[in-house]
C-alpha cells in the first residue's frame, strides 16, 4: 500500500508520495525573481531556508490562474527542497489495488517526462509526479 498526497491543477489530479511532502502552506509571501524563467514564481522562506517556488501551471503549460488562491506543496527533491504551486490540495489517497499503468506520451497535454506513472480509476486518472524531474530541466535565463 502506498500513500499519495493529492492535489489538482485545473481539472487534473496529481499525486506525490507522502514521504516526499514536507508541508502544505498557503499565504506565504513570494519574492519575485526578475529575469528568471517564467515557471519560477519566486522564493519563499521555509523554516530558515530560502526555497524556490515553481508554478506547476506554467511548468505544464496550463493557462495562468486568474485568482490568488493557491497552495504551496513543499517537497523534497534530489536537488533540495522546493515549493510547487498548486490550485487545490485534496486528501491523502491510499492505493491498495494494482491499477498502476505506465503513461503514454502525454495526457491532458502534460509531458510524460514529469510523470512516473498513473493510476486509473473509474472516473479519473491520478498522475504521480516525479518531483526530481521537475527540478532537472535547467532554467532558461534571459540575459
Amino acid at each position, binding site marked *: 500500500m502506498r500513500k499519495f498526497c493529492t492535489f489538482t491543477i485545473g481539472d487534473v489530479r496529481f499525486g506525490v508520495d507522502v514521504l516526499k511532502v514536507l508541508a502544505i502552506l498557503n499565504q506565504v*509571501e513570494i*519574492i519575485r525573481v*526578475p529575469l528568471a524563467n517564467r515557471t519560477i514564481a519566486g522564493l519563499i*522562506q521555509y*523554516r*530558515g531556508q*530560502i526555497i*524556490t517556488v*515553481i508554478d506547476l501551471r506554467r511548468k505544464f503549460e496550463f493557462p495562468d490562474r486568474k485568482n490568488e488562491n493557491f497552495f504551496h506543496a513543499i517537497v523534497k527533491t534530489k536537488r533540495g527542497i522546493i515549493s510547487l504551486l498548486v490550485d487545490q490540495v485534496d486528501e491523502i489517497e491510499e492505493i491498495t489495488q494494482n491499477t498502476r499503468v505506465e503513461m503514454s506520451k502525454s495526457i491532458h497535454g502534460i509531458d510524460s517526462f514529469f510523470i512516473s506513472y498513473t493510476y486509473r480509476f473509474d472516473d479519473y486518472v491520478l498522475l504521480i509526479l516525479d518531483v526530481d524531474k521537475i*527540478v532537472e530541466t535547467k532554467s532558461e535565463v534571459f540575459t
Partner: protein
Amino acid sequence: MQEELKIFINESYESLNSLDKELISLGKNPENTEILSTIHAHYQTFLESSKFLHFPKLESLTHIGERLSNHLIQSDFEINSEVITTLMKLNTAIREIIFTIDETGKEPSHVNASIINDIEEVIAKSEASVTDISESSDFLLGGVPQGGLASETDIMDRFMGIAIEMIHAREALHRFYLKFKDISYYQLITRFSLLISDLYDQVRQSRNQTVGSLVMNLDKIMKDEARARGKSVALRIIGKDKELDSRMMEGLRICLIQLVKNAVEHGIEDPDERIAEDKSPDGAITVECSYKGELFHALITDDGRGFQADAIRKRLVDKGLMMTEEVSQISDEEIIQYIFKDGYCGLNESGHFIGGKPTGLDIVKAKIESMGGAVYLQSNLPGKGCEIHITLPMINAIVPVISVVFGKERYAIAKVHLYEILQLDSDTLLRNVEILHGHSVFTLRGKKIPLLYMKQILKYEDPEARDKEKNLIVNMVILETDGIKFGLVADLVHDMEEAVIRPLNTQISGIYLFSGVTILQDEKPALILDVAEIRRRHLNNPELLMAISEEQEEKGIVAT
C-alpha cells in the same frame, strides 16, 4: 612538516569524499567529460602531494588513478560499471593508506597491489576499445557505500542550518528588546547574543578553509610546470588568512591550478625573450585573495605577454567556433573574454591536447559558475601581462546590507558598495540630469555620476508607477565598484542590518543581477544585487567611463 602533513591528511579525506561523489555522478552521467576532468584533477593533486611528501606507495596508487582518468578523457572508451567499481576500490585502498598515515605518520608496510593490476586491465581493455554498454545503464541506482566522513559533512551542514536559525532568533530578540527597552533584560540578551555569535563563528570556521591551505599544492605544481618548460617563475600568494567554505575552496583550487599552469605555459615568456623585452628574466604570478563585501575575490595576475585580441579572433575562427565577420564586430575588450568560451582551449593546431588533457579555461568558467561565482579577464595589456578576476559568494558569512525598495519589491545591497544615500525631490533630480554618451548622468556637487534606474536593470515596469509620479521625493544610493561610482534610483532605501549570505538557489543561479540571497529582519527572503556585475553590464561604454574618470581626476587635482 608536521603541520604540512596534517593539512595533507585533512585535504586527502576531503578530496576522497568528493572523489566518491564525483564517481557516483559519473556512474549516472558516463558521458559527462567535465566530471571526468574533475576526477582527473583530484588524482593529479593527490599525485603531486604524495610525491612531495615522499609516500611511494600512495604515489603508485594515485599515479595509476591519474593514468586511468587521463586515459578515459582521451579515448572514447565507454565508462561502464566496471570502471567505476574499480576506481571506487582504488579510493578505498588510498583511504586505507591515508588512514595509516594519519595514525602512525608512516605508510603501511604492506599494500594490496591487486588494485593496480585491476586498473592496468581496464586500461588495456579500453585500449583494445572493447565496449560493453549493457552493464552501464542501471548501475549505482541503489545504495552506494558512503565513506565515514561524508556523514560528518552532513552533520556540519545541519549544525550550520541550526546556527543560522539561531542568528535569526537573536536578531528577533534584539528587536524585541529595542521595542520595550526593559533594562533588566539587557544583560541577559547581550550575553545570549554573544554566545550565539561565538557558536556561529566556530561552526562556520570548522566548515571553512583558509587560502593558506592551497599554497603548498599550488607552489609545487607551478614549479614543476615551470621547470618542465625551462622557465623561471615566482608565485606569490597574498591573503593566506582569507577563508572560504571548504567545498568552494576545493573548486577554487582546481581553477587556480588551471590558471597558474596556463599562465606559466602561455603567459610567461622564455627567459631570453623576457630579457630582450627589458623584463626581469624571472616571471611573476600573483594570486591575491580578499573580501569584497558579500563576495570572495581572487585576483590572478602575471607579467607575461598577455592576450592578443587578434590572436584570439584568429583562433576562434580557426576552430570553427565563430565566423570571421562575427569576430571582427566584437571589440578588443569583449573578445578577450572569449578565452573562457567552450572549446576555445583544449586541442591545439596539430590536434593534440595541450598539457595532455582537455581541461582548459572553459572548465574554469564552468566550475566557478556552478558555484554561483563569476570569472572575467579585466585589464589586459599586451606585452605586460593580464589580470583574471574570480569572485565567489561567501556563503554563510554575516555581512552588513542595506535594502532598496522598488514598487512592492525589495533588494539587498552589501554595505561595502555603498558610498552615499541621497534623498531629493524630483525637480532637483531633473535639473541635475543630462545625457552623456547615451546614459543619464547626474551632477552631484560638481561631479558627474551615471545613473541606473531599478526598472531598467530589473526590466520591469512597476504597475503603480503612474501614481508615483506625483510623489516628489526620490531616493538614490550612490554605489562604488571597481573604482567607478554610480547612482541607483529607487523608491525607498532601508537601514543597514546584518544578514547571513546564502548562495543563489540552483534554479536561478545563472541570473547575473544577483550574487546571493539572504533573509532580512522581517524573516522574508531578499535577493542581493551583484553591484559589480550590474555595473559591468549596464555601464560599460568606454567613452562614458573615460569622461567620468577624467572628470573625477580633474576634481581630484582641484581638491589637492
